[in-house]
C-alpha cells in the first residue's frame, strides 16, 4: 500500500505565532520556536518528519503562512 508523506514550508516572517495550526495538526508536527521572528513572534516550526500533507495547518492559518506538499511513496 502506498504511503502518503507530506511536508510544509513555513513563511516564518509572516507567522504571528497564534498556535492555531499547532492545535489543528493531527500528527503533532508543529511547535513554537524558542527564537522570535522580525516582528517578535515565536513562529511555528516543524519538530518531526511525520507530516502527511493533510493541509489542516494551512487551512486554519489566518495569515496564509503555510505551503503544503503531499506525495505518495
Amino acid at each position, binding site marked *: 500500500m502506498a504511503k502518503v*508523506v*507530506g*511536508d510544509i514550508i513555513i513563511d516564518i516572517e509572516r507567522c504571528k505565532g*497564534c498556535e492555531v495550526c499547532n492545535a489543528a495538526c493531527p500528527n503533532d508536527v508543529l511547535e513554537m520556536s524558542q527564537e522570535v521572528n522580525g516582528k517578535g513572534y515565536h513562529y511555528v516550526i*516543524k519538530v518531526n*518528519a511525520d507530516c502527511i500533507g493533510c493541509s489542516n495547518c*494551512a487551512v486554519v492559518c*489566518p*495569515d*496564509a503562512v503555510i505551503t503544503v506538499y503531499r506525495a505518495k511513496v
Partner: protein
Amino acid sequence: MAQTFDRPEIQTPENLVYSKTTCLTDNVMHYCPGCGHGTAHRLVAEVIEEMGIQSETIGVAPVGCSVLAYNYFNFDVQQAAHGRAPAVATAIKRLLPEKYVFTYQGDGDLAAIGTAETIHACNRGENIVIVFINNGIYGMTGGQMAPTTLPGMPTSTSPYGRDVETMGNPLKITEIVAMLPGTHFVTRQAVHTPAAVRKTKKSLRMAFENQKLNKGLSFVEILSNCNSGWKLSPVKANKWMVDNMFPFYELGDLKVNGEMINKD
C-alpha cells in the same frame, strides 16, 4: 544549526497541495494573531481565484477591523462608510450586473449601524454576496459591546457583562434576513477548525455561484474569535467560541435555494 525536518524531495511543484492564493496580496495583515478575519479573507480570495473571477470582482470593505481589507484582497475594492456597504454594493451590482459584487462586514457594521441597509438589500434580493463576520464585539475600537454580544458577556462598555434588561438582547440578524423573500442562501459557519474552514469555503463558493446564476442575495455569517477583545489566547478563544457562541448562534444553513431549513 537546528534540524529543520525539511524533505526537499517532496517540495516539488507536482506535489503542491496548498499555497497562498494569488487573490490575496503579499501585504501582512494587521489583524491580531489568530484572528478569524485573516482566515475569512483567505477563503473569499480562494473562492474568487478558483472561480477565475478576479478581474470580475468588486468587493466592498466596511468600517471596523476589516476596514483595511482592500490592502489584502488582490482585486478591486471600495471602502464604504460604517454600515453602508450593502447600499454601496447595491449600486455597483445594478450598474455592473455582469460583475461579482460582495460586501465584507463585521457585526457592528452590519447588525447595528447598518441594520437598515442590510435588511433592505436582503429584502430587495440584490444579487450580491454578504460576508458577515460575527465575533460578538467591536474589535477595532477596543472591545466595546456589539449588537451580537452574548448576555452576560463582559466588554469595555458592558464591563459587568451584558445586562439584557438595560442593554437589550443580542441580535440574531442572520435569522431575520433568512425570513426575507429576497435572500436565496443564508448560512452560519465558523473558521475555528480545519473542518469548519472547509465547510465555510463551500458555503462561500455556493454564495458566489448563486450570484453567477442571478439567484438573489447570499448571506454567509462566519463566527469568528476576537481573542484580543475577549482577552484570551487564540486557541482558548476558539474553545470559548465553541462553548459560548455556538449554543446561541447555531451553526448550519438557515436557507438554501430560497427554502428555509427546518431544524426541528
